[in-house]
């Protein structure tokens, strides 16, 4: 009797345990035919996308052998913080030594550190770290305002649709990616320059005052956008989301 009830209790507990455990779907692993010595980024790093969205361009990495030549048939695996998705999650390098994956960033704004890894002949992992930037609501609003008001002077690159005014200015504005300079300014400094113009911090009057055109929230959004895209990264931009 005792043993029977014990069995029932044990069964119940086993059922509870079974229902609590998560099923982990296993993906069929690809078999590598070659093993590289190094992995490098071809393109697709440092892109900007909205949270939870795919980056505009796919991420392409390349595996090289010891001589530095592109290697076909090596297995590359991609990983990132939870919420980051890769399509595909892994792949074999093609004839030009490259693997292409589409990256969707996680739901939090900030920097995402992605890892692309392959194994060398000794079975050791060779990894490459790549950073992408996810913009939340505030930074997205900041980006919109940047496109409307700031970019024509602050972005030296011209496109077909938008000719840059950068070269025409006697005193050059700082591109917003210029972390070396901009990271030294506090949020209050940046806000003051946007609000009252360059002369507020003894800088050029070519930077006009925007305080009567943009709201306080707008200026905050702009500052958070500038922090988000600065390179090297700003400390105010928050945590880096990476795989633990």
């Amino acid at each position, binding site marked *: *009797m*005792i043993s029977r*009830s014990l069995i029932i*209790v044990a069964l119940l507990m086993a059922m509870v345990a079974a229902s609590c455990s998560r099923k982990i779907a296993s993906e069929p692993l690809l078999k590598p035919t070659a093993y590289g010595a190094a992995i490098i980024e071809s393109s697709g790093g440092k892109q900007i996308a*909205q*949270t*939870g*969205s*795919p980056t505009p361009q796919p991420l392409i990495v390349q595996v090289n052998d010891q001589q530095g030549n592109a290697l076909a048939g090596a297995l590359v695996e991609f990983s990132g*913080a939870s*919420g980051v998705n890769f399509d595909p999650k892994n792949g074999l390098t093609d004839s030009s030594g490259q693997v292409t994956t*589409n990256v*969707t960033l*996680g*739901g*939090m*704004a*900030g920097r995402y550190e992605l890892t692309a890894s392959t194994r060398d002949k000794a079975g050791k992992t060779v990894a490459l770290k790549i950073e992408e930037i996810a913009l*939340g*609501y*505030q930074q*997205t*609003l900041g980006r*919109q305002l940047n496109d*409307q*008001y700031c970019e*024509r*002077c602050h972005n030296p690159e011209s496109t*077909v*649709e*938008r*000719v840059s*005014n950068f*070269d*025409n*200015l006697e005193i050059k504005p700082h591109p917003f990616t210029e972390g070396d300079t901009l990271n030294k300014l506090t949020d209050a400094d940046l806000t003051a320059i946007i609000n009252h113009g360059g002369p507020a911090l003894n800088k*050029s*009057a*070519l930077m*006009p*005052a*925007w*305080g*009567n*055109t943009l709201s306080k*929230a707008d200026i*905050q*959004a702009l500052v*958070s956008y500038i922090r988000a895209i600065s390179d090297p990264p700003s400390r*105010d931009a*928050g*945590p*880096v*989301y990476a795989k633990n």
Partner: protein
Amino acid sequence: MFGDSVRAFGVVSFVFLISLAIAPAKNHFSEWRHYQHGYLKMIRNRSDAVTLQRHFQGGIQQIWLPELGVVDRCTSCHVGLKEASLNDVSMQPFRKHPAIPHQIDQFGCTVCHRGQGVATTVAEAHSSTLAWEQPILPAKYIESSCGECHRGPLPGAPQLNQGRHLLSSYGCVHCHTVKLPDGKILKATDNPPSLSHIADKTSREWIYAWLKDPQAYAATATMPNFKLSDDDARDMSGFLMANSTSLPGDAVTLSAKAASDPAAGASLYGESFCSSCHSVQNAAGNLVGGDVGPELTRVGSKVKPEWLQAWLRNPRVYHSETAMPHYRLSDPQVATLTGFLLAKSDSDLLANVHLEAATLEQIAHGKRLVSDYGCASCHEIAGIKKPENFAPELSRIGSKPVTQLIFLPGMQHTLPDYIATKIKQPRSFGQGLKMPQYTFTGPQIDSLATALLALNDRSFTLPPALTVAAKPESDYEPAGKAGKLMNDLACFSCHRINGHGGEMAPDLTWEGSSVQRQWLVEFLKNPNTLRPSLIRRMPRFNLTDADVNEITDYILTVYQSPTIDRDSLPLSGYPQGEVELGKQLFYGKYACQGCHIVDTKTDKGYIGPTLTKVGSRLTAAWIFQWMKNPQAVRPGTAEPNRAMSDEDARALTAFLISQKGGGKLEVAKK
């Protein structure tokens, strides 16, 4: 026997005691308690521990907002949402909430993120089970929740805005009725051409090739692919040709012969700024030009030469509502442009299309197919009525129960996934489905799904006080003879007036207060370049003097701002001292030369219009008001409001109005 019963009693009592203990034990071992312990452990060694501990409240937390139907206990586990100093924490559930324009206490969590607010376990709060229909909304669709209350375009929610725009501009709403929460029916903006006179315009072979694969003709085509069989495309093209009636004036004989002078054609195409609206693929495969009109890369393989001539002469004969202006080109110009456009052809496009004359049965079958596929939902086709409710209504698609959906194998069983997959590959959901294959990109599909998810029960049942209404659409039309002329010139394809029209060119709502008469007359006759950096510019319409005067008079009398009296300040005669002061302010305090050019020798800025002749262009009253507050006279302009004193504004006005450009050279061309 007796001993057994005692033992049994003992066991039963034991089990009973244990089961009594389950409830308090469950509470003790509950997930939220576990997370709260974790949070306290995490903050213990931080420098801000004291503040964080003071803010911390144990036990189940709840945000209750009866008006929104919100009972959210999410903050029981997500303890640090409001802690600004947790900026560096990346671990969930303890992250700080990113900055948004709303307070968590006032809106709760599930209004934006969905999920089950009352649940107190991770799985029940986040995931959908049969009992809980509303799973957490994936981050990429989060903007759909903004759209529940915000009915118009919203800064900071580009995906929602784009999705709403696509629903109209790709013509989704031709077939799917979308009734908006404010009672309006969403209208299409794509304006597909009538097919009643199609035989005047193109060949049956082209129609066949187009029906088979619209994107083979033009990669930018918004017409979807219906995946028709060869026979079906043959019969439909046969019907459309047989059904077409000829329109008088669709073929003109020009006094000049169609000329093939590529250089002259290219320069006329450029001068007329055709590329402001039409794109052409260049040798590198990149599209160059705007997307208001159709792509012209292979137009020579499509249109009949006679039709093209008639169209270039006056497009309104064939299509009275077209966005294309009536250019008033001379016969030789039409001939040159026709020759130039016809040369843009692709011999491969129709190389394999060989069609026998259509039989009566084929035509009848084609007609049936044209009705079955709902072609008349988008296109006007003589003899076929526009079908009503051709496709399912999408007004509340965002609340469609998951149990009513049929999923594909391997798909996640969630509504957003269903909507996105349905847009991506509509025909994969079963045989005989009619929805065609569109060529949306991934981000376009995400934004469409975002816009559709916003159309849910909550958006319809919200108290009106909690919603932010869309700006009502304007159907402003100018009146009289000038109004007719302006429509003929399709001014509204690029310019906006009183809330109606395009956004490519400046808003002309207050143009009557802004410009001097002589300048406007000259500009309409021969538009010159105000902004050297723009690639889209005002074309020349070869207007007669009478037409120019008609439009000028209309603009100057009707489009006057009530706050600007154009004659309140003189156009000349300002004291020299004031002009000098203005000059100093221009180059010094306000550094206007960063964006504008007054002296072509020294100034380089070209964001704003060139001001070398501004004194002959603008009224002094307008300049003064513009200096005081540019956004007040033209909302959205990039010129910052400098909150100038009246003295500064007046001095700058004096300086600028003295820039008459007399005898000075234009910006030297490189």
